[in-house]
């Protein structure tokens, strides 16, 4: 039973990370590429870590909760790295695809 739960969690995690990577390859411009890795991977990692937590809690003595910390740090750092990348992309005036709306909302930097 436990093995089933772990396997399903691993599969879900793997799927989400795969989708995130597909998004990275498939999207037409930089700004859209950023969406896949920042979001799809956080849940993917969370389910992989939950699987690890279940595995170590059942096979070893005592509860294993360190993995919660890893998910917490991931949740904290994912938006910040995305923010730094998109900020530098805007600074370098990276081209976005033509049908992007509201491009005039971007202000020139000083």
């Amino acid at each position: 039973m436990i093995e089933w739960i772990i396997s399903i969690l691993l599969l879900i995690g793997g799927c989400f990370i795969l989708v995130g990577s597909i998004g990275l390859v498939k999207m037409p411009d930089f700004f859209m590429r950023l969406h896949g890795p920042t979001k799809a991977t956080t849940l993917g990692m969370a389910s992989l870590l939950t699987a690890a937590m279940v595995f170590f809690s059942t096979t070893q003595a005592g509860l294993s909760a360190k993995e919660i910390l890893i998910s917490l740090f991931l949740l904290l750092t994912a938006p910040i790295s995305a923010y730094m990348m998109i900020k530098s992309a805007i600074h370098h005036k990276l081209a976005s695809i033509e049908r992007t709306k509201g491009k005039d909302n971007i202000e020139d930097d000083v």
Partner: protein
Amino acid sequence: MRLEAKFKWLPTPYMSLLLFIVWLLLNNSVSTGHILLAAVLAIVIPLATNPFKVKQPLILKPGLAFRHLMLVLYDIITANIQVAILILGPNKKLTPGFVKVPLDLTHNMPITILASTVSLTPGTVSAEVYPWQESLEEGEIPEQRFLLIHVLNLTDEEALIKTIKQRYEAPLKEIFQC
């Protein structure tokens, strides 16, 4: 909004709590020794680092903060599924866009939290906070700030701004009382 904590020896109560929990999680034990050590670290580290930090607004409504955290976690899960569907669908259907969201928040800390939640929730990544930090005088707090976000599939700009303001910004305003 309050910048100073009630007790001098506990300048940032929730950071202390976080440090306490993180220490116990890192060591993966709840033995008396570790609880004592965690308590000492949770008091000493904020006391030692507080003089170096810029004063940030404190969480004044912890219950609401917890409820908001749960809401955001739930949204992260739905966001992942939504974005996965958008990514796997045809590219041609997506209409990306930049949206400028006017903010009621003025302080850096709540805006940072808002920007991070926006990045983690459905189809949006926060890109910039206007006006530029570099264009401001030292210590000057601008009256109106804007958050520039990139949306993967922009359908209704007004509705999106409204959701962000009501769902994520309003609770933050409550929590920090500013």
